[in-house]
């Protein structure tokens, strides 16, 4: 089992969701987060004067999949989230030790 954490542009979320739907996925958690990568934030303006937004709003997706599904899930997210501009985000893949379905108490791969 692996957990895929994808930090993507909020405005690409619908595209990514559709791509994942076509592929099929066990479940997903979405969080609105703030952060920055190498590009170090944005400039915005208020009453004629600019200010730095160091942490820009992003969407974080968390999906736990079987080992065999990792590469196509990551591919689908990469392709659908990409605009080619700075700020497209990052995907992290982490090992998962165990999973438990709360309703039944099943664990391991059966739980996802």
């Amino acid at each position: 089992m692996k957990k895929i954490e994808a930090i993507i542009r909020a405005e690409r979320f619908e595209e990514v969701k559709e791509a994942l739907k076509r592929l099929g996925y066990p479940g997903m958690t979405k969080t609105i987060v703030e952060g920055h990568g190498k590009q170090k934030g944005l400039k915005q303006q208020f009453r004629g004067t600019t200010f730095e937004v160091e942490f820009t709003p992003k969407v974080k997706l968390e999906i736990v999949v079987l080992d065999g599904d990792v590469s196509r899930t990551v591919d689908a997210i990469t392709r659908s989230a990409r605009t080619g501009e700075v700020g497209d985000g990052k995907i992290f893949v982490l090992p998962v030790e165990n999973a438990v379905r709360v309703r039944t108490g099943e664990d391991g791969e059966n739980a996802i």
Partner: protein
Amino acid sequence: MDFRSKVTKVVLRVGLTLGLVCLLWLAWMATSGVAMAADPTGLGGTADAAIDYVWILVCAFLVMFMQPGFAMVGAGFTRAKNAGNFMTKNLMDFVIGSLVFFLIGYAIMMGGDWHGLWGTEGWFMLGDYYDVDAYLNMFWMLVFCATAATIVAGAVAERLKFRAYLIYSVVVSAIIYPIYGHWVWGGGWLSSLPFGLGAVDFAGSGVVHAVGGLVGLAGAIVLGPRFGRYDRNGKPQAIPGHSITLATLGVFILWFGWFGFNPGSTCNAHHLRISVIAVNTNLAAAAGGLMALLIAYWKTKKWDIGMLINGILAGLVAVTAPCAWIEGWAAIVIGLIGGMLMYASVKFLEAKGVDDPVGAVSVHGACGLWGLLSVGFFADGTYGNYSIEAPYVAGLFYGGGGEQLLAQFISVVVVAAWAFGMGYLTFKLMDMAFGIRVSPEEELQGLDILEHGTPAYPDFLTMPK
């Protein structure tokens, strides 16, 4: 005990003693009978008078409703962590203004005249002043007084101690507004200058807006800029307000309230000139907003909503003095120049290191002075001094020569010196006595929790920034 707490204690004691003496005097006066000249019953109520009373009162209620307009613009343009503090201050300047202006402000402003300087009678609205006419006039002047006081709140937002706000509200309501108001509206020396019809100010570009804006400038200078307003290299950084939506609601409320502020200033429902005044008010607001938006787009390539809001207010402030004496085209020109002036003033103050969080100094100060001056250029000789009969007010472009312009110019210099000077003195003395700026920790955490005990939005996560 250190010097500051000693001073505070003495000030408190003197204040309490004065308050007690005033109350005793009030009780004595109240039991000494009503003078016969007054008409507290309203026996002189003709149909004509009734129409005027309703007109003036409804307009006064509209002006009172500008208070939430100011509250929403100011809160929207500042951060969520200080919204409760801003609301408390906006409520309290109306609370204090209502009491202080009734008790002493009106007497200083409109109670007779002593050598053109100030009034000397009508304290507590007793005796001859317990009268339907006097009460009507007092109420009209009061809602304007509270407007002047509340303008300051924006310029000193997010860092002024609450008690300093309470004290300056008293000083504005009892001294700064009534005295300049007396000079222009109460038969004082500016109104009797031997040029043109003397200094005139139809609905208060000077008496209300320039006074509020320039006291605000003094406050902003004494306080210094908020943390984060300038970066390490001294480069200005905007601090975005927490709700453009509230600010927009506020500007619409103010625009609406201004239809009481300006047309109501005829103080006479029988002057059909009120239609011209309403149209002029509206035109200047539109022109000011458009101009500010276009300049912002030209400079930044963004349709800047904050500048649009300030531009609308700039147009309204500028047309407040001339609105009864000009044609529609002139209202547009005055509004356009107001929008430009506001933008330039915002940039100028920012470059000079003066932090005015909502643009109150640029909107009310700069455009208030421009409004006063504009009468001297554009007054077209079709309306008199709150009268449909001659002499009419005529400016440079309408055969009035430079006389009216000169009177207006003198008034501009006087109000700038008076309001800024008195404002600076008030804030500086308070700063020496107890320090008017909140502690750095409190400023960073927000004034809501430490000054008032509760955040404005307890169910939301509002991150201090």
